[in-house]
């Protein structure tokens, strides 16, 4: 049973990171205002949200299954307050930090209609901090971080997010941007 929880705890961490990566990519695409092949714009927005919520669910399993694990030695405070961990406090603390950021991002996203676009957007920008923090946590804390498959996985995620970020910062990222800033000039 202990072995099963340990495997589940590690596996859900990896799945969660994969889903968060997909959600970041979809979020950037969503901001550009473009559809994804046959997927219309409003579907991109909904899939972005649902993948993020799924990632959050996997993250919850990741936390619960590793709680009380004899190696991770998690206490309840480690779920909320970073860098107090008994084992690998720095790398664990990055995970805790990512959880805190994720909670803020998810709650404000779900309450977007109540809190308004400004607050939502300000908090949602924290995703650009949360994602690399989560990735570093997986590399520094992950039992499988040295495995070839994990290195390939982490590299694929990083390249994908960095490419999307490059596109995000490029001219003409937003649909109609080139038309709006005027070909007349």
């Amino acid at each position, binding site marked *: 049973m202990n072995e099963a929880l340990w495997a589940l705890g590690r596996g859900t961490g990896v799945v969660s990171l994969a889903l968060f990566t997909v959600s970041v990519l979809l979020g950037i695409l969503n901001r550009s205002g473009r559809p994804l092949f046959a997927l219309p714009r409003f579907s991109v*927005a909904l899939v972005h949200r649902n993948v993020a919520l799924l990632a959050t669910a996997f993250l919850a399993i990741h936390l619960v299954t590793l709680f009380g694990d004899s190696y991770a030695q998690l206490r309840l405070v480690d779920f909320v307050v970073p860098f107090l961990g008994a084992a690998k406090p720095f790398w664990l603390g990055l995970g805790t930090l990512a959880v805190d950021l994720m909670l803020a991002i998810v709650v404000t996203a779900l309450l977007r209609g109540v809190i308004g676009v400004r607050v939502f957007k300000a908090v949602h920008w924290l995703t650009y901090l949360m994602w690399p923090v989560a990735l570093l946590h997986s590399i520094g804390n992950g039992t499988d971080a040295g495995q070839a498959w994990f290195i390939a996985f982490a590299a694929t995620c990083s390249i994908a997010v960095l490419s999307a970020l490059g596109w995000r910062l490029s001219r003409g990222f937003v649909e109609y941007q080139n038309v*709006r800033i005027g070909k007349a000039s």
Partner: protein
Amino acid sequence: MNLRAPDPRSAADPTVLLHIDWTKCDGRGLCTEILPELLARDEWGYPLSYGYGSNVPVPDRLLDAATDAVSLCPRQALTLIDR
């Protein structure tokens, strides 16, 4: 026997308006996908209601779709107004 006075508004006279706040609208195009019968896209990507400007009458059958458009608008530029 129906004692209620007949509603002067016919089915062709919708009671709900979709209001577009142009100070918030960024022309992301989600509403034009959800409500293609009500909104087109102009050449800069902004919604274009066929002859109604900022307050677009919503027929009953499109009320659910209009509600979705309001909640999915990335800029919260849409509201439904009861007439």
